[in-house]
């Protein structure tokens, strides 16, 4: 690694923090435009810094003896728990974190830029940019965390920034509800994460990632032999940690918050709920991958199946949704499922670790094209003032740039050669193929479905019927189109980055290649999906309705998202609220407090009952007096002489 000092990296998260503080505290004193520019400027700086870091790391200083080093650029003790356990705050640079730095800063920068145009004239723009900065800070802190507790801290912070941003339109009840839901669901998942951390740290005696994930170290192997309910303690710990990841990455069954999270402003959806925060779960698993692999193989299998199921499940739902942002949201779910699956099927070291590499690769490319899709959707919504695709149609004439970039994105996600989606998806399929044929088959279906629903969206919005609009839709301003174009370019060319030489499971580069036996059928499936979508949706016709009628139950279940929301609602509203919280409140008022009041009341009653003693009659007093004396005398003579 040489003597290069990476400690400047600390500024990468800190600059957005300052930007947040300035905008948060004094933002309302600034002019609206200035706030946007300030935020964007800050992001521009760290974008450049990240690129510079990536360059220095990958091409200059990172590779030593054929292995990418894990570099701790800075590390300070933040809180001491015990002699061994302490939370540090620091910067850890290794291939995945540097890659994530690039992803986060790139998308964030684009989104900031885009937001200047998108949010123009909105109330509370300074708040918006402050939150965006806060999010960026938290996300970067998460990415560069040196230990699992630091990650947890920033994990919570991204959660809260997400909460704040989803609820940005806080006067809209649906947005408020969505933000609440997002927070509570992820919070619930984080509970698992926390307990997982507790178990893990207790077994291994450290929070530190480098110590934890060193395959040669002893920490990783501890706890494997202690069993609990059929699995090793380590497996349980990792499963619980994955629960946190699943919550944030919206894996089934904790996915319910993500579609609702689309209530936030669209650029936010692009940044948080498509490109960065939702892949934090993937990043977490990738970060702890050696532990999963060496000590918690069952957990890894579960991850693979959860990922696989989620990808299929979400893809099916995406086919029937009408809200374009929700389609994209389910698409995101599906794609993250891919990444999880890839990690789940991955082995360790060079070619065995193909899945690991593929997952990160897909994370990278997905960030670009999904951000592009969302920003494009934002441009559409900006133009049409509606989220529903049945209110759109024929927009290609009105929004040429948006149309072009959107098409590129759709093709990318459908996985057509030579767009970036193709490469990353192909690696995932290859990895799955070697490990598990069932998952492999599922992924093929998902590939087809993806192509179908994306082009359904594309055709309905840009072709389809000619809709009459209240206002004539107009192309977005240049602050919005520049990011679109940039991301489109990135989506197209990102596939050519030799990822296997940069990000691998054991940090040792290997030669990646494309398995055409797998790739060609996948392209074919993609094309098939596109074709079906084109037949059904390019012109207005009754195929969709007939299709829906034929697959009546599937359609209805899919349209209603398989009623998962209702189940949750039942559990929370009915069971927790009605059968736990309310009885607890009642119990507290009437039983616990009632006892206290009862004691007081009893005293009063006794006091009332015995008042006859004080009758006012002198002779009765005398009687009591003498009886008392005699009774005392008898009792004590008896006791004394005994």
């Amino acid at each position, binding site marked *: 690694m040489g003597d290069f000092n990476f400690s400047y990296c600390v500024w990468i998260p800190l600059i957005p923090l300052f930007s947040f503080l300035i905008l948060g505290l004094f933002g309302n004193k600034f002019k609206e435009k200035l706030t946007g520019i300030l935020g964007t400027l800050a992001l521009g700086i760290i974008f450049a810094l990240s690129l510079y870091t990536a360059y220095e790391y990958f091409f200059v200083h990172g590779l030593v003896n054929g292995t990418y080093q894990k570099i701790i650029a800075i590390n300070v003790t933040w809180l001491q728990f015990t002699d061994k356990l302490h939370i540090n705050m620091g910067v850890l640079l290794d291939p995945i974190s540097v890659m994530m730095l690039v992803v986060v800063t790139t998308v964030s920068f684009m989104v900031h830029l885009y937001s200047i145009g998108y949010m123009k004239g909105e109330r509370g723009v300074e708040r918006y940019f402050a939150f965006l900065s806060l999010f960026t800070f938290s996300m970067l802190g998460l990415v560069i965390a040196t230990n699992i507790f630091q990650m947890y801290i920033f994990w919570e912070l991204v959660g809260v920034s997400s909460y704040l941003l989803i609820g940005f339109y806080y006067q809209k009840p649906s947005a408020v509800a969505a933000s609440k839901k997002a927070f509570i669901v992820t919070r619930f998942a984080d509970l698992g994460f926390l307990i997982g951390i507790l178990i893990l740290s207790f077994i291994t005696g450290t929070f530190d990632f480098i110590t934890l994930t060193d395959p040669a170290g002893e920490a990783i192997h501890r706890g494997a032999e202690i069993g609990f309910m059929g699995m090793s303690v380590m497996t349980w710990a990792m499963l619980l940690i994955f629960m946190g990841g699943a919550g944030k990455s919206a894996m089934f069954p904790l996915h319910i918050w993500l579609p609702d999270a689309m209530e936030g402003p669209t650029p936010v959806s692009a940044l948080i709920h498509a490109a960065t925060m939702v892949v934090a779960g993937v990043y977490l698993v990738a970060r702890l991958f050696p532990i999963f692999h060496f000590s918690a193989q069952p957990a890894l299998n579960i991850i693979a199946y959860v990922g696989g199921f989620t990808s299929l499940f979400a893809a099916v739902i995406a086919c029937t949704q009408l809200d374009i942002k929700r389609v994209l949201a389910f698409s995101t779910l599906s794609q993250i499922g891919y990444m999880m699956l890839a990690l789940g099927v991955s082995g360790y070291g060079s070619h065995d670790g193909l899945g690991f590499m593929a997952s990160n690769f897909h994370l990278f490319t997905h960030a670009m094209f999904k951000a592009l899709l969302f920003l494009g959707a934002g441009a559409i919504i900006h133009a049409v003032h509606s989220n529903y695709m049945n209110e759109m149609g024929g927009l290609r004439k009105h929004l040429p740039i948006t149309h072009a970039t959107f098409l590129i994105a759709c093709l990318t996600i459908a996985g057509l050669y030579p767009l970036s989606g193709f490469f990353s998806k192909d690696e995932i399929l290859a990895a799955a193929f070697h490990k598990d044929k069932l998952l492999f088959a599922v992924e093929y279906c998902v590939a087809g479905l993806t192509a179908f629903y994306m082009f359904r969206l594309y055709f309905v919005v840009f072709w389809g019927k000619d809709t009459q609009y209240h206002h004539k839709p107009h192309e977005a301003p240049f602050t919005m189109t520049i990011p679109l174009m940039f991301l489109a370019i990135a989506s197209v060319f990102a596939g050519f980055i030799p990822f296997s030489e940069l990000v691998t499971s054991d940090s040792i580069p290997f030669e990646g290649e494309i398995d055409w036996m797998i790739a060609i059928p996948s392209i074919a499936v993609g094309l098939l999906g596109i074709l079906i979508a084109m037949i059904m949706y390019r012109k207005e016709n009754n195929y969709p309705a007939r299709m829906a009628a034929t697959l009546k139950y599937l359609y209805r279940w899919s349209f209603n998202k398989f009623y998962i929301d209702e189940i949750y609602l039942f559990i929370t509203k009915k069971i927790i609220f009605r059968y736990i919280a309310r009885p607890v409140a009642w119990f507290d008022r009437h039983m616990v407090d009632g006892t206290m009041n009862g004691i007081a009341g009893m*005293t009063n009653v006794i006091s009332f009952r015995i008042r006859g*003693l004080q009758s006012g009659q002198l002779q009765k007093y005398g009687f*009591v*007096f003498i009886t008392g004396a005699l009774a005392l005398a008898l009792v004590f003579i008896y006791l004394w002489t005994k």
Partner: protein
Amino acid sequence: MRLEDFLLMRHEMLLTLMVVIVLIMEIFMDDRHKRCIRPWTIGLFAAVTIIGFLPAPTGTLFGGMFQTSGMHLMMKNILNIGALIVFIQAAQWLKLDSNHNKISEFYILILSTLIGMNFMISSGDFLMFYLGLELASIPIAALAAYDTFSNKSSEAGIKFIFSSALSSGIMLYGLSMIYGTTGSVYFDQVGSVYTGTPLQVLAFIFFFAGMAFKISMVPFHLWTADVYEGAPVNVTSYLSVVSKGAAVFIFSIILVTVFRVIAPLWQNVIWVISVLTMTIGNLFAIRQNNIKRFLAFSSISQAGFILLGVIGGSTLGMASVVYYVLVYIFSNLGAFGVVAAISTATGGKENISDYDGLYKTNPGLSWTLTLALFSLAGIPPVAGFFGKFFLFTAVAEQGYYALLTIAVLNTIVSLYYYLLVVKAMFINKSDHPIAYFKSDGFTKLGLAICIAGLVVIGFASPIFEFIKSLSFGL
């Protein structure tokens, strides 16, 4: 016996002198100037009180019938202080036209009871004790019936004199049995031959009942509330602190000197009686509306607390009892002083509900009453807290943790009703609160002494230390 030996009876003689002086003033002053008796008496009595604190010889007189020691002197001084405060507080009330003709009566009667109490405390045999006791009781009946035009006052008088006579009859019966079984009435001789035969136990219980009447322990307390309510406020206040204090003093002295042998017996008796006294007193106090009656029950439950110090019969116990009585004098007289001031100014408003909104009109009186009640309840920083704490320490010293627990739980009940009065003054709203009035200098002085006492006695540790150094036990 030399003439100087009479100096041992300094307190008693001075008081007798006072009685004579007041009598002379009464006889030779013409009617218009009768009111001047008040400041003169107060001034003289203040001097007597101060003289009481001067160092004095200790020893015995009349072949052991009369004995005095540092502790006895301390007790007498404490009683003097109490009486002095009562005198000061009563001055305004005595000025009323209805009392014009009987100002000196009040003083003479009280001073006689005080003489009786002093003899009672210093007594070395049961004869002197009995004489003192009766001298301390009979005038009180007259004092209770002082207000001749009030039904209640007469009722109080009759109830007191009859109950008192009955109790002293029973006690005497017990004493006669003690005499019969031991052949002596001298404390030291009785103590040395007392063995605790059943007859002696019976005798002790009868004696105990007589004392319990004076201290108003349950179930010998029933006269208390009626007499306190019926008697004029200042008499009640005297009755509740000084009279009770004297009885407690001699009671504890006799227990540790005469009935030393049967200590386990009387400890058990006191255990039962003190629990009963605290609890019943509290339960009755909760529901009272007349503040004098309320304070009567409160004083009953206070008696239960005082017994906690007696029960151990230890040095610490005796010291804490004496100390508590001192504190109790200031607290209770503080409370009664306010009640008296209000009663005098408003022509007899004595219900707690009359006190609604008192704070708005008379903040000074309200704060005084509050402090006094807090002291009674044992809330810091006022002296009652220290007093109670030492009592509790004394009872715990002997290992009576169950009794201690019952006692502390009773303090909560008592706090409840004390707070009811505080609540009436500070929180309750009233359409017709007691109007603002100005008290005369005497009342103010009386209350000021109480407040000063409440604040100082607790923090000034030498007071307790001094009492402790004089104390004696089993």
